[in-house]
């Protein structure tokens, strides 16, 4: 599992998915800040003026962090920003549910009014409830992988690479300190781990 969590491919997929979700979720809010501010206010987590400040700043942090994740710039820091936002979202949803407030529209991704009940997406998917919390927990787990698990450096096939490395160490072909079977400007030409 640890190798999987450190796989650069897994990191790439998680980055692109999380980044896309956060960029997409920010667009509607950026386009109509006042409508988003009304929704934040309806959550009754912060007062009217603080709701305005959240509504104005939050979507841009989402957008910026999402773009950085997609671009692969400052990966860990942007993943940490995303994780922090998700923690706030989960706590806020928890307090809304605990107090029994009916937030007709989550405002999480789209600002469209709930309107008439639709077959798809159903109400439990649009409102603030367990579906939202579970979804955010999945996103949080993904962002924490990006923050906490440093990707192994080899571009692909990290499993086979480390196995081959270990086999080479056992055979005494490379120094056990692991100073480098992987690429780098300082690589000695005699290194064996390289394929």
């Amino acid at each position: 599992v640890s190798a999987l969590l450190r796989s650069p491919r897994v990191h790439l997929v998680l980055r692109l998915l999380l980044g896309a979700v956060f960029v997409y979720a920010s667009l509607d809010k950026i386009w109509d800040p006042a409508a988003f501010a009304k929704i934040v206010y309806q959550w009754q987590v912060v007062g009217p003026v603080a709701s305005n400040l959240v509504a104005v700043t939050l979507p841009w942090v989402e957008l910026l962090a999402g773009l950085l994740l997609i671009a692969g710039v400052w990966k860990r820091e942007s993943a940490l920003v995303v994780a922090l936002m998700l923690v706030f979202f989960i706590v806020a949803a928890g307090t809304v549910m605990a107090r029994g407030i009916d937030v007709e529209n989550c405002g999480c991704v789209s600002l469209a009014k709930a309107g008439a009940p639709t077959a798809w997406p159903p109400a439990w998917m649009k409102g603030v409830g367990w579906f939202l919390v579970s979804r955010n927990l999945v996103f949080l787990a993904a962002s924490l992988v990006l923050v906490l698990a440093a990707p192994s450096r080899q571009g692909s096939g990290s499993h086979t690479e480390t196995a081959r490395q270990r086999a080479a160490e056992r055979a005494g072909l490379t120094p056990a300190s692991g100073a480098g079977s992987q690429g780098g400007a300082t690589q000695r030409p005699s290194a064996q781990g390289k394929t």
Partner: protein
Amino acid sequence: MHWDGACYFRNMAVHWKRFILILVAGAAAGFLWNAASGRGFALGRSVLVQAGDELVQVADARTLLDRGALFLDARPRDFWRMSRIPGALPLPEDDFDRGFAEAEERLRRASGIVVYCSGFGCEASHVVARKLRERGLIAAILDEGLPAWQDAGLPVDTEPRS
């Protein structure tokens, strides 16, 4: 740079300056957008309040009620059926025309009008007050709505209506 272990981990550590910078840059972009895009709004007061809206606090609303002001319940009619500020008429935001037709005569004669809804975050009272203004009637909006009224220990009529 040597790819030894220490350097590897130093490389991968979270740079807190970058973390802060993402937050600060995002927030700054948001304020800039709000100020310059033409899509922004006034940040210093509740976003529900627009120019021309007149808010009234609970204590003053109580005085208005005692002086015979007409109260309007802007929540969906089912809520009004369950409970209401004494004497309030239903004028739901989502069924305005019918409620207005029923109440118009009394509204035109009223010495004062106060609209309320379910409080904190609800916009119905603001919408109803604006629609009344379009029809030449001035209505005050009860700040924080029915919950504030109840929290102040003021009477609520809970007799079911049909």
